[in-house]
């Protein structure tokens, strides 16, 4: 069911691209369990290149005593550089190249830990007698940078990495089953995964057929259903899955409105029409918030249930935040918010919070939680940070959490995180 015509296939000289090519490839590793150990996952094994460089140096010098200097000109940390230095000296000693001071040395070996665009580059310059320096080089790929851990706060947004991929992720949905399953909505396919043997393993890939090109800043939403597994909403396209595995999906041109808020409730509380060649909702709402069936065009909306009605917060294309309560459409002004908001029912504080992306024009992004105790918004959590811009923020189908998709600025990879709110800390 995958779409081979759209899936790039490359030959061997382009090895680094293979991870984005293989469906459900082993490289698409992501996983609740691994996430907890993220720093270790991204650690690099220096053993191979250390031995390789030591071997090259020993071949050039032969056994003997040499003045050996190691300089770090790369982004490696001091401790990493020191670890590598020690290992290099140990490897050299094992090969008969012993470190000594300059006076007693048969020559000098200057080792530089450098880096280029794609690789760490370790260079040894070997000076012996009046001969011209010999140069020995080894290189190893530089790993992608992992996002750092962040501090805690009284009401805390808990961020759990679900999935990363080179290809664009539009939405992710987790559903309870045994074993647990996950659906990932991409630009060209919907992929199903099952959590087995401590990792997510690909089960099925369903291609999304569409006649018209997708708009830039593509958006899409997954909604879990009770009578079938899921619906997927994309600009101008609707996809409906079958109920049982192996699944099939039927995609067709459609301008049907997308569910807003916790869409797993049947029927969902509100739906809104999405502009099929743009990245925003037109403002037409169905069946309507009370008597209100239209609002300003908006990027996102969040529901905050009150005692007798539901208050809707609309993040408008005009840069304003609008509050719709079924009767009035009040402008809360131009807040320091991003374009994406999502309502979450945490049970903490007033029960419901709004997660809000940041508005900074920096490579990273943030999400904070807000409440509306009266007529003003109040921050109720510290910002949780992302290494890239958030491209989607959707309330999960049951409303208890949100899914945030971000694109890591450094690598261009997409990352899907589940955001839940924890009371206190």
């Amino acid at each position, binding site marked *: 069911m995958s779409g081979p*015509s*759209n*899936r*790039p*296939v*490359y*030959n061997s*000289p*382009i090895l680094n*691209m293979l991870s984005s090519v293989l469906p459900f490839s082993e490289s698409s590793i992501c996983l609740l369990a691994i996430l907890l150990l993220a720093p270790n996952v991204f650690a690099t094994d220096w053993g191979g290149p250390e031995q390789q460089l030591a071997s090259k140096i020993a071949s050039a010098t032969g056994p003997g005593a040499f003045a050996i200097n190691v300089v770090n*000109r*790369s982004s490696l940390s001091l401790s990493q550089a020191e670890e590598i230095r020690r290992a290099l000296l140990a490897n050299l000693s094992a090969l008969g190249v012993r470190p000594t001071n300059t006076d007693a040395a048969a020559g000098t070996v200057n080792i530089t830990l*450098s*880096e*280029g*665009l*794609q*690789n*760490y*580059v370790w*260079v040894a310059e070997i000076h012996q007698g009046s001969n011209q320096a010999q*140069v*020995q*080089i080894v*290189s190893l790929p530089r790993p992608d940078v992992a996002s750092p851990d962040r501090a805690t706060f*009284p009401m805390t947004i808990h961020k759990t990495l679900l999935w990363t991929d080179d290809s664009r992720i539009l939405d992710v949905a987790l559903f309870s089953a045994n074993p647990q399953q996950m659906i990932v909505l991409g630009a060209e396919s919907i992929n199903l995964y099952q959590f087995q043997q401590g990792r997510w393993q690909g089960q099925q890939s369903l291609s999304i057929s569409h006649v018209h*090109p997708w*708009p*830039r*800043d593509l958006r899409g939403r997954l909604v879990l259903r009770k009578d079938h597994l899921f619906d997927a909403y994309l600009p101008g396209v609707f996809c409906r899955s079958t109920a049982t595995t192996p699944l099939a999906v039927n995609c067709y041109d459609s301008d049907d409105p997308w569910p807003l808020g916790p869409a797993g409730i049947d029927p969902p509380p509100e739906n809104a029409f999405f502009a099929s*060649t743009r*990245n925003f909702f037109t403002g037409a709402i169905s069946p309507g918030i009370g008597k209100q069936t239209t609002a300003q065009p908006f990027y996102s909306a969040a529901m905050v249930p009150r005692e007798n009605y539901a208050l809707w917060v609309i993040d408008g*294309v005009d*840069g*304003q935040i609008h509050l719709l309560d079924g009767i009035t459409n009040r402008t809360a*002004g*131009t*807040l*320091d*918010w*991003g*374009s*994406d908001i999502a309502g979450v029912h945490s049970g903490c*504080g007033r029960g419901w919070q709004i997660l809000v*992306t940041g*508005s*900074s*024009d920096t490579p990273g*992004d943030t999400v904070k939680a807000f*409440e509306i*105790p009266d007529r*003003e*918004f*109040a*921050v*109720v959590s510290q910002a949780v940070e992302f290494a890239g811009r*958030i491209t989607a923020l959707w309330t999960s189908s049951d409303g208890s959490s949100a899914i945030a998709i971000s694109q890591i600025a450094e690598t*261009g990879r997409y990352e899907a995180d589940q955001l839940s709110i924890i*009371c*206190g800390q």
Partner: protein
Amino acid sequence: MRRTSFPLFVASSLILAVLASAETRPRYGGTLHVALRAAPASLEPSDHGVVDFASLIYDTLITVDQRGQSQPCLATSWQADPGNQRWRFLLRSGVTFSDGKPLTADGVAASLRIANASWKVFADAGGLIIERDSPSPYLPAELALPRNSIVKRESGKEVGTGPFVVSQWVLSKKLVLAAREDYWDGRPFLDSIEIDLGESFRDQVMALELGKTQLIEIAPVQARGAGIESLRVTKSAPAELMALVFAQPSGSAQEQQLRDAFALSIDRESLNKVVLQGGGDPAGGLLPNWMTGYEFLFPSQMDLTRAREARAEVPHADVWTLGYDPNDSVERVVAERVVLNAGEAGLRLQLAPGNTADVRLVRIPLASLDVHIALSELAAALGLPKPNYGSDSIDDLYGAENTLLQSHRVVPLLHSPHEWAIAGTVRNWTGTRDGNGRWRLPDIWVSPNKP
């Protein structure tokens, strides 16, 4: 404890003032006004002045990303036969030129044959075949160069498959581009882009300050000058190579010795401090260190003692003429300082504005983020032999670059960044790491709110 501290925190966090705009998601619409110094005489993508904006009008089969990796564009996949001389490309379906006509393999082949007369390019079974007369393992990255853009030429006009279509073209003066609703990779956020061409750096700054332009180039000497600090300036990694190139190969050992003395006499640190205001890097190699990781191996320090010794070993030295672009104030200053430095080593140079000289001062932008293509293109631009890469290894790349430097034809001076100033309303500016062309203007959007 939890219940008492929480309301206090909430109260202290109430939002009472609003400062910034609410938007991170791109906004559709608007016009971006750009000013450029280049004044191209055509819209051919091979024209030097078109490189900056070629990707707005044209696509290439392949693009190279910020890590130097080849990525699909009009070609969705590619495969080489053993030996890397014959390559097959599968083309993306559903792509149209801006005149509405579909992209075909025959059209792509015709375009590539014009750009590369020695290539054998033809359509075959829904795909495209390229045959070269020698192994070409880096062909995908080569196809990403602007000169290999896919162009349909009809009635003296160039038509592309890119995200924008030309709506107005005033030769060497003005270019107006309109967004294509049916672009295969999604309509750009901007409605249009207006580019004023042939604008001096000074006029560009004035236009930006007056709000007439939103994106301008900044000259190295301007970047840290008065009046610029208030602008939003962004720059690439130091990528443009400034170098001295000898017109003729070094014929004798004595000539080589004189050229060694010349290279050792130049104070690149001072050049960088004075001319680039510290914004670049002294260069010992052709490719910058951030790209290869080994450039530091090529010496760039001035060594006047060794320079004088080398000069003294040659009894007679002719006066060399040093050519430079007289319209480029940066080149003039650099050329003057080079003459002074060389004089201290006992070498005599005479400034000769123009292109016909014994030694020429040149500025060559990095053509690609693929290291092999970047070095090959640099060698071609410098008039040096094509580098010979035995393999993909870093050792062979280093060896090939070292061979070029050992030819005594080129003396690297500086690697300098490209710099731009951008209005605060312009969002999602990413530029490129090499700073050369391939602007991602389709991803840019203009906010009605100032930050």
